[in-house]
């Protein structure tokens, strides 16, 4: 097979697999959040937590739930890292330092999984399991919950109730993420991924670090988390040993964000509303794949930082999937990509992680962008915009704008300050425009809760640990609060009847409008920065 054909076959298999599960999984997720009764396990959890699962919450209480849960998650994760030496399976890796533990705790709770640590040297199995793996599940479930709350805002009318955060969180975890992760963890082991409680294995006289990889690998991809169990992440042969595991992992990355468009369509009672969002996501994702793959295939040293078993296509598809969702796992080193290829991965994040975006975060981000798009369209024709039967007034558009602008604000401030700090020079791994790209990429990754890196950058100084930590925090929670506020004000409204003047949101006109808005917002915000980094490099 020629490399081109082989790549197209891999992409084809991936699309076919996603198409097969799209409806059943999308419908299942919709039922999970609509279902009236609780399972025994869920009831036990609610009793233990002293929660009334049938009490619905206002948007503000829902938001307090998200923030409170995330806060205790950060504290718990920080504490167990700081006390790692006391925990079993630590292999003398000792307590994690305060700055690194701070950064890592925020990183995993915000679903970013930016890693300033080297797992093989720093993180023992216990913290990986009771800390990082747990957050891999629940941070994804938080994203799902917020997405569902926003969808309820469109569906419900004249109510101040958005559902119960604890129920949505628990159900998303137990009924969606856990069963899929378990099945695929076993599948991955069958295909060669390791699952060991030992610290390493002897291979022809050389000790290679090992870990309980498979259980974390499955949820790391499925929950669009991306934090490697081992330093090389999904490039490590123990995490991603072959061509088929590579496809399985890309599938896991994409499957929930893609299928959520079906869930959305079902919940709003019109499947075409979901398909149109999927078409926008797929168009941008495919275009970016063409850019990244094409750029890498014509690079000067395309195999630098890539594993031979994945080849250029298998690496490019993974790179597009991991940056188009907010995953951030890598099976090749984006730092060694060409100016255009690495710039493509960067741009994928700068679109705001909605093509198709992370678990839950993707669908709520693109819905927020749809609000912005309809607002722009309303300005053009001079009437109050509506979307899904709800009027988009001052409150709604303000919330949407805050949600969209949080990421660029923290990103550009963080990257801007870092670029002028004298200490930054020593942290870079490449000179010139590529060095600036390393900075931009780091702050884009943190602010978008992606977690992948131009990995040559040494981000272990207190400045990097704390500023990137804050970017992750604001990039995650400012949009979440804004989205829940938006959901609250939408749910309070009456339903507006469809009239001849209503702009239909299921056709190509709306799809183009939405695609244009995504591209335009990113372009207007980031072209100056991109011009100095990846674009300058690509033109050299």
């Amino acid at each position: 097979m020629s490399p081109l054909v082989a790549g197209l076959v891999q992409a084809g298999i991936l699309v076919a697999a996603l198409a097969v599960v799209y409806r059943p999984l999308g419908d299942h997720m919709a039922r999970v959040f609509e279902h009236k009764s609780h399972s025994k396990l869920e009831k036990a959890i609610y009793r233990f937590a002293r929660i009334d699962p049938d009490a619905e919450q206002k948007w503000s209480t829902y938001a307090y739930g998200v923030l409170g849960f995330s806060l205790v998650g950060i504290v718990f994760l920080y504490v167990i890292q700081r006390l790692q030496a006391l925990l079993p399976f630590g292999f003398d890796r000792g307590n994690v330092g305060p700055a690194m533990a701070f950064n890592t705790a925020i990183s995993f709770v915000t679903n970013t999984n930016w890693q300033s640590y080297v797992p093989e040297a720093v993180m023992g199995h216990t913290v990986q399991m009771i800390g990082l793996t747990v957050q891999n599940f629940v941070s994804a479930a938080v994203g799902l919950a917020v997405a569902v709350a926003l969808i309820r805002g469109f569906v419900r009318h004249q109510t101040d109730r958005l559902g119960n955060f604890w129920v949505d969180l628990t159900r998303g975890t137990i009924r969606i993420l856990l069963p899929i992760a378990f099945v695929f963890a076993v599948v991955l082991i069958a295909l060669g991924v390791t699952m060991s409680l030992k610290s390493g294995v002897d291979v022809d006289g050389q000790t290679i670090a090992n870990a309980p990889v498979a259980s974390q690998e499955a949820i790391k991809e499925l929950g669009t988390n991306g934090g490697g169990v081992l330093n090389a992440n999904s490039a490590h042969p123990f995490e991603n040993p072959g061509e088929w595991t590579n496809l399985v992992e890309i599938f896991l990355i994409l499957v929930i964000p893609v299928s959520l468009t079906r869930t959305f369509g079902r919940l709003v009672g019109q499947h075409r509303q979901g398909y149109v969002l999927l078409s926008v996501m797929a168009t941008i994702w495919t275009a970016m794949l063409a850019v990244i793959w094409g750029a890498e295939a014509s690079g000067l040293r395309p195999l630098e930082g890539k594993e031979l078993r994945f080849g250029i296509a298998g690496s490019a598809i993974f790179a597009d999937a991991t940056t188009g969702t907010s995953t951030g796992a890598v099976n090749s080193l984006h730092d060694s990509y060409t100016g255009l290829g690495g710039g493509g991965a960067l741009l994928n994040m700068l679109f705001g992680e909605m093509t198709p975006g992370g678990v839950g975060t993707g669908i709520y981000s693109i819905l927020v962008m749809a609000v912005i798009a309809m607002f722009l369209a309303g300005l053009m024709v001079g009437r109050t915009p509506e979307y899904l039967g709800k009027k988009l007034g001052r409150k709604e558009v303000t919330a949407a704008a805050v949600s969209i602008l949080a990421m660029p604000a923290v990103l550009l401030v963080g990257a801007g300050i870092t670029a002028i700090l004298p200490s930054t020079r020593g942290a870079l791994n490449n000179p010139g425009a590529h060095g600036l790209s390393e900075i931009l990429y780091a702050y884009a990754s943190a602010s978008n809760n992606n977690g992948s890196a131009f990995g040559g950058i040494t981000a272990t100084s207190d400045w990097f640990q704390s500023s990137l930590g804050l970017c992750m925090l604001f990039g995650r929670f400012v949009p979440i609060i804004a989205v829940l506020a938006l959901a609250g004000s939408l749910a309070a409204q009456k339903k507006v009847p469809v009239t001849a003047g209503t702009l239909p949101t299921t056709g190509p006109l709306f799809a183009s409008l939405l695609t244009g808005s995504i591209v335009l917002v990113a372009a207007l915000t980031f072209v100056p920065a991109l011009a100095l980094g990846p674009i300058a490099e690509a033109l050299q």
Partner: protein
Amino acid sequence: MDNFLKQSWAGLRILLALTVLLGVLYPLAVWGVSRLPGLHDNAEAVGTTLVAVTREGDKYFVPRPSAATLPASGGSNKGELNEDYTKVVAERRVAVAQREGVSENQVPQDAVTASASGLDPHISPEYAALQVPRVARASGLPVEKVRELVAASTGGTFTTTVNVTALNRAIDAATR
């Protein structure tokens, strides 16, 4: 603020319950399943050929360059316009050409570029073919036999690659 504290308290309890389920029971269940025959050797990487190990001596095939400093896996993270690194790659090319007694333009790209993990067990069929005469010479095996061993370690569905770790063990077995 009261509401926030109340929700955080509920959050702590939910987190503890889910930590037992997701952080203890789930990984242990997966680990338990991985003890089954047929999965166990994968899980523990028994006799694994998934990672490359550099073997001393001319009778072995040489894997791709590694930028990893074990135990940490990883790569160079060098961009293609990095001039210092371009020199490193050029030096590698000279060294490989010298070692195999071929001209520099015959040296394939995977022979001079570092992989992402630093543990890539594979080389291209071209790089393997380049090394066959030297391995045959140093191991005392006939060239034909070495070619057979290379073919036996060649595979892949979308990309054809040669597994160096498996191949070098086959050389061991053949020269024992």
